[in-house]
């Protein structure tokens, strides 16, 4: 197994764990944490391909990760603000109990 | 003559190389790192113990009392002006019973002091203590310093939450709110230096200040933006290290001791150590960024070894910390937040603009006029905005009949 494959496997595992958490846990904040883990798995892929790819001097991988980190920060801020707002209205942050729009 | 001073200046570096040469070749980096780590682990805790005595004596003097002046060498009459006090203090702290609340989250309660101390010690890895005396010279050293500082907030939260005590939690929440608010002016004031020097490497930042004009050093603090930046950095570092007037997280008259209410014995000692080492590290960073690091202020004193300059500056800054602690009362929470967001943050943003103007104007007296005017003008306007609506005058005291 080459180092690139090892990094990709770690990233695949992180993605799967994040996905499992996002779809199986009830709490809204844990769903957000799962999404952050999935984003990080993608970032790890970018860095691994940048490091072992043919053109590291182009810095595309690094740039992608930096921008994705900024967006992850924005996403976390808005997501947690939503969780707090929902908690204020419904006094719960369990996703199973927040289903007013369910048909 | 000159050779002797150079040798004295590089004595620690040479001793390190000499010691490392005893181990076989492939182990050189490992041995060198181990020696550097043990150097930091010996020097800074020792410095901490001396500074605690300085602080107690200094505050005592300012408050018109003596402070510790008894403990010297045991079984003799030598008292050392009380400078032996740290030994019984430390022994008392280490032999106390370690109490963990029954409701506490045991693991997190145990880990919090450790998580507090590790990032603080890691921060010393990038600080230059003297000429060629930097452990790891990262290309992004400044970023490393600030990134590592973020973990301290997590440790504070762990301590406050795991104690299951309302005062602990209140203290931790106050501490985190304060640290996050003041981290922004702290980083923004450091950004000006990065802009003008053009590097995040701390060694390069010092090299850029190591010039002399008319015999006086060209430190960043001797420019309009540098002075403002240093002031902002200093105030923000007071807040980051939870010192008076920003010691709300451990305001003993309101919330007992804040997030370390439920800590005793060795764990409390670790928190205490972590707090002081954090203070030294951030002062050291301020020295590096604005006060020229290990360089001498005047050109005819450059023969004094570089590490002596660094520690002299460090002691001076710590003395100002102690002086402020003995002089100013504690702020209120709303004053603290208003000051950070309505005064320091806009001023730090304007300072970035001023640093840009300074960088691109011709090296001439005109840029001094323009930049000084901008700094003073924005300071006055923002200060007036902050004080608006507050009546400052003689206070009316009401006494019980």
């Amino acid at each position, binding site marked *: *197994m080459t*180092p*690139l494959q*090892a*990094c*990709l496997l*770690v990233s*695949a595992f*992180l993605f*799967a*764990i994040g*996905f*499992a*958490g996002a*779809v*199986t*846990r*009830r709490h809204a*904040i844990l769903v957000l*944490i*799962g999404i*952050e*883990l999935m984003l*990080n798995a993608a970032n*790890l892929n970018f*860095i691994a391909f*940048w*490091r072992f790819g043919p053109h*590291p001097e182009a810095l595309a991988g*690094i*740039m992608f*990760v*930096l921008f994705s*980190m*900024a967006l*992850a920060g*924005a996403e*976390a*801020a808005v997501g*947690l*603000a939503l969780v*707090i707002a929902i*908690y204020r209205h419904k006094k719960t*942050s369990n996703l199973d109990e927040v289903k007013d729009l369910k048909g | 003559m000159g050779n002797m001073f150079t040798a004295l200046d590089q004595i620690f570096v040479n001793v390190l190389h000499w010691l490392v040469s005893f181990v076989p070749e492939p182990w050189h980096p490992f041995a060198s790192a181990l020696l550097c780590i043990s150097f930091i682990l010996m020097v800074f805790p020792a410095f901490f113990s001396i500074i605690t005595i300085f602080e107690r004596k200094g505050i005592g003097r300012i408050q018109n009392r003596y402070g510790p002046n008894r403990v010297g060498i045991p079984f003799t009459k030598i008292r050392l002006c009380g400078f032996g006090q740290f030994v019984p203090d430390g022994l008392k702290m280490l032999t106390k019973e370690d109490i963990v609340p029954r409701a506490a989250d045991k693991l997190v309660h145990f880990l919090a002091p450790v998580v507090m101390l590790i990032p603080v010690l890691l921060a010393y890895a990038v600080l230059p203590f003297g000429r060629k005396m930097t452990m790891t010279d990262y*290309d*992004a050293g400044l*970023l*490393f310093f*600030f*990134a*590592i500082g*973020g973990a301290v*907030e*997590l440790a504070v*939260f*762990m301590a406050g*939450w795991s104690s299951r005590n309302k005062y602990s939690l209140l203290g931790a929440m106050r501490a985190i709110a304060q640290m*996050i608010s003041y981290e922004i002016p702290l980083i923004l004031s450091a950004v000006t230096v990065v802009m003008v020097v053009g*590097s995040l*490497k701390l060694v390069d930042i010092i090299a850029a200040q190591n010039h002399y004009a008319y015999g006086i050093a060209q430190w960043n603090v001797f420019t309009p933006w540098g002075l403002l930046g240093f002031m902002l950095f200093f105030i923000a570092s007071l807040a980051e290290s939870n010192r008076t007037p920003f010691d709300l997280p451990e305001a003993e008259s309101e919330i007992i001791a804040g997030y370390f209410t439920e800590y005793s014995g060795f764990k409390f000692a670790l928190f205490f150590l972590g707090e002081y080492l954090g203070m030294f590290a951030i002062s050291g960073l301020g020295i590096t960024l604005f006060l020229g690091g290990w360089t001498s202020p005047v050109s005819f004193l450059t023969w004094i070894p570089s590490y002596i300059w660094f520690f002299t500056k460090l002691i001076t800054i710590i003395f100002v910390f102690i002086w402020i602690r003995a002089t100013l009362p504690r702020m209120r929470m709303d004053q603290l937040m208003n000051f950070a967001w309505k005064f320091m943050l806009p001023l730090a943003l304007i300072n970035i603009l001023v640093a840009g103007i300074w960088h691109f104007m011709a090296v001439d007296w005109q840029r001094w006029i323009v930049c000084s005017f901008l700094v003073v003008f924005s300071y006055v306007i923002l200060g007036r905005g902050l004080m608006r609506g507050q009546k400052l005058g003689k206070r009316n005291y009401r006494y019980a009949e």
Partner: protein
Amino acid sequence: MSPALIITAIVTILAAATVMSLRNLVHCALAMAITFSGIAAIYLQLSAEFVGFAEILVYVGAIAILIVFAILLTRSGESPEKSVLTSGWGAGIVVSVLVFTALGWAVLNSAGLPKAATAAPETTVKNIGEALMGKFILPLEIVGLVLTAAMIGAVIIALKEDPKTDNSGRKS
């Protein structure tokens, strides 16, 4: 493959698994901080220093604290008595195992991956800064705009409502 990389990878994976299996949310958030530190350590070993430090600054220093604040503000610091899993958790586990199997199979059997280990690329902070200010200036500006919008939006969403208006926004 260096032993350091293996150790950090194992720590990261274990911490990530812990995040999703603990019941207490604060413990989850702390384990998440460990995961992010592990990922930052992997970045450092892939000679991406700047990104590694930025990862610690953004994720451990900011997002973990934000999440911890949200946990305390929604009073979910205690372990819940009821189940922490959603009603359809079995299907979720199956799908994620399938995802991991598919990705792992693709990684291990792909012929297009570069095989030979290359020398570590020389990137300095200066290069990154110049690229950000030159080739990638437009994305940088857009990210700035997005961050401003997100900040304003988060503040407005989390703002305490006027107690005189009820949930539907009418004045009562």
